[in-house]
């Protein structure tokens, strides 16, 4: 029976890591566990739970900063910020339904995986909102980096390095993030019946306009059909969606201007705040892919090449697609392919410039395939050196991203 550690404070975390180093017990690090099956399976001797690190430490709405223990559920953060009419602008996703887990997404988990929602195109990624951290390294040493103010260049931006490191570098136990005012009103302009190539052009036109678009997605017909929003599900065609948010008069004006801009692409419809919220939550959480459990890829590509990348894969494998970030984020559910579609996906990413991550697959597939984009020799060597700089004994989530890291 694998050991399960649940330190109660930062010194306890440091002790746990030193224990792991001394006894050569690699640790699987978990907080809410909602993304436990994201990444390569970790070969661990023990589980280290961060669940004791729960609670908001300090929230100063007027300073636009919030400090919380790392395993604070996102739901707690969202309730607190909503009460002050603020939000985490990077729109962190909840992948629990997608990954078929019943864990609860936490703030630290969202940062560790650098997961950002549709507003990424306007407000930035999780990493852009991550201001400060207290952590324990794989050496069992406590350290901090960053600060509790929005603007800070004192020392290296270690927060950036930790975001997207999937718990392989350090155990974050307290984090400070930037918060922003929540929009008063939201409108979504829908364009019906576009092929992906035309849809990318329409989304590009919206994003290239001065209308401060905060969401730009395209759902092919079979994906749109899964929506809980009747205008989208009932379209019987593909749906492209463009979101604007902000002060009411401004939103109405921009929505009107966008309708004018997009009218030449196809038939239009407009969603108000409630339906918009539902639709963009579905897109954020990739809900259309939650019902099946086949391999699911996430491609990050130059936005104008999203359709081209998807088309290349569709030629080689049976795939379902959802485009977000104006085409810069392509979700691909691959059916029936021997290699989970890896060859076709990697080939497409390489062709357009970008990379792909296998977000969902069964454990044997995730062990056998490269889950994260294979790196060039130079990047792989630097990645390994950084891993050793934080975790020389390799006790924190070893192998979760790359074998040997």
């Amino acid at each position, binding site marked *: 029976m694998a050991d*399960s*550690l*649940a*330190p*109660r404070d930062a010194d306890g975390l440091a002790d*746990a890591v030193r224990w792991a180093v*001394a006894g050569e017990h690699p640790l699987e690090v978990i907080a809410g566990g909602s993304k436990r099956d994201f990444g390569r399976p970790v070969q661990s001797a023990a589980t280290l*739970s961060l669940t004791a690190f729960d609670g908001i430490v300090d929230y100063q709405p*007027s300073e636009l900063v919030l400090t919380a223990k790392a395993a604070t559920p996102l739901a707690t953060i969202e309730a607190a910020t909503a009460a002050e009419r603020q939000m985490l602008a990077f729109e962190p996703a909840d992948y629990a339904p997608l990954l078929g887990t019943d864990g609860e997404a936490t703030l630290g988990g969202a940062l560790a995986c*650098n997961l950002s929602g549709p507003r*990424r*195109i306007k407000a*930035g990624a999780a*990493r*852009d909102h991550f201001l400060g951290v207290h952590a324990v*390294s794989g*050496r069992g040493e406590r*350290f*901090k980096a960053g*600060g509790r*103010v*929005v*603007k*800070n*260049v*004192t*020392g290296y931006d270690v*927060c950036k*390095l930790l*975001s*997207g490191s999937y718990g392989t570098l350090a155990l974050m136990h307290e984090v400070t993030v930037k918060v922003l*005012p929540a929009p008063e009103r939201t409108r979504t302009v829908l364009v019906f019946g576009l092929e992906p190539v035309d849809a990318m052009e329409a989304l590009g036109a919206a994003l*290239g306009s*001065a*209308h*401060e678009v905060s969401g730009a997605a395209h759902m092919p017909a079979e994906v749109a059909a899964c929506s809980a929003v009747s205008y989208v599900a009932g379209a019987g065609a593909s749906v492209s969606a463009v979101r604007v948010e*902000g002060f009411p008069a*401004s939103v109405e*004006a921009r929505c009107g*201007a966008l309708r004018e801009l997009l009218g030449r692409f196809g038939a239009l419809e407009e969603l108000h705040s409630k339906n918009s919220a539902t639709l963009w939550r579905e897109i954020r959480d990739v809900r259309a892919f939650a019902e099946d459990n086949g391999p699911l890829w996430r491609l*990050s590509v*130059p*936005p*104008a*090449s999203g359709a081209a990348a998807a088309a290349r894969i569709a030629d080689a494998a049976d795939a379902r697609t959802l485009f977000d*970030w104006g085409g810069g*984020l392509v979700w691909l559910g691959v059916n029936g392919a021997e290699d989970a579609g890896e060859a076709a996906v990697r080939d497409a990413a390489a062709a357009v*410039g*970008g990379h792909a*991550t296998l977000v969902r697959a069964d454990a044997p597939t995730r062990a056998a395939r490269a889950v*994260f984009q294979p*790196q*060039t020799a*130079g990047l792989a060597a*630097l*990645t390994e050196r*950084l891993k*050793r*700089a934080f975790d020389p*004994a390799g006790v924190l989530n070893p192998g979760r991203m790359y074998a040997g890291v």
Partner: protein
Amino acid sequence: MPEPDAGVISQRQSLVAALRKLLPEYCVIDDERGLRPFECDGLSAYRSLPMVVVLPRDTREVSRVLALCHERGVKIVPRGAGTGLSGGALPLADGVTVGFGKLNRILEIDTANRCAIVQPGVANLAISTAASPYGFYYAPDPSSQLACSIGGNVAENSGGVHCLKYGLTTNNLLGVEMVLMDGEVLRLGGKQFDAEGYDLLGVVTGSEGLLGVVTEVTVRILPKPSTARALLLGFPDNASAGACVGEIIAAGIIPAGLEMMDKPAIHAAEAFCQAGYPLDVEAILICELDGPEVEVDELVALVGDLARKSGATTIRSSTSEEERERFWLGRKSAFGAAGRMAPDYYVMDGTIPRARLPEVLTRIGELSREYDLPVANVFHAGDGNLHPLIMYDSSIPGALQRTEEMGSEILKLCVEVGGVLTGEHGVGVEKRDLMGTMFTEDDLKQQQRIKCAFDPDQLLNPGKVFPTLHRCAELGQMHVHRGETAFPDLPRF
């Protein structure tokens, strides 16, 4: 600075000869007259002639120069336009300064992907100029934007008055090409939004030239906003100006820019450029709003109301581009204005939680009297980034030292109230020895281990940022007590 290595200096001639095999004659500078312009950056109190300056013309030349220096154990100092204010580009007497003046081309404006690819020596403003015909611009706008290079911006993670709404350099970068000290060329990011693997781009940004030499930069460009208007607000005291900033943000408004100037700064600016600032107030705020016209008009009215409720005695809103630019004129020339008030001035750059502003300004006023040195304060009020300008006369013996002492006191005060040593100008040599006020030895060692992963021989820009240099081998050691059955009370579940 680290003691220059006499052995390296004695090999200078042979190094120059070897460099001239890699680069044409005119790209390798070794005569004193040629070296002189490189002896300092914007922190001109610190000067040192570099051993050699090279001006490579492409990535391959950068890579070969670094590989050669690496092989010979020679230090490298990257240098952009030399406008840095913390001594980041301060040369080393036993080091080669690599300048990017010849890497100054805009390679691509890609409107479909809303990005631009440029060489590191391109001036910040030149990107916006090149993108302008397509209706786009590059958002981060340091006051030095006419001169400073994008490579320097990446190295310092520079900000500007529009960073409140649009983010710092780091939030507007998509990718870089970078050369490691051993000459290896790496690409981080690209035209896509997210990095693969560890966010190396994120940690390289703001690393002050210590991790790698940036040879190409991909930035996001944004569509130009359709309208911009500014308000000029005058307040009877610093506290009410500070409170007004809080009210604006509490109303859910993130202005494009929100700047504050205190009385000495207002008077200095007004004397310098006659921007039309009110002289009977203790503080002014300049608040810029941009976006669709309806929004801008609505928010201009709203901010005006909030200012009135906060006690503003002057409320003016721009009704033309010309007027908006005049509101900014005084703020933008604040450094120059300080330069007019005294023979020398010293720019500080701490960040504080905004709510602590009145108290911090009071304490800075006390320090000013104690040290008998006038201070004018300009403040990126929206994000708490304070720039006290200390005026002094370097021809008076000891004046520089007293100024620096007072500057240190101000930065320590910033840390004490929950802020940080530097918001945008970087640590460099200037604030290096203050790092211990913010970080523990373990914090700094962990950062230095990052340095070691990129540059194990510590040849790239050494002597900057970190107060103590540790050897990488020493930093890598870990004392493990194997086989111990200690830790009996680790909590289990």
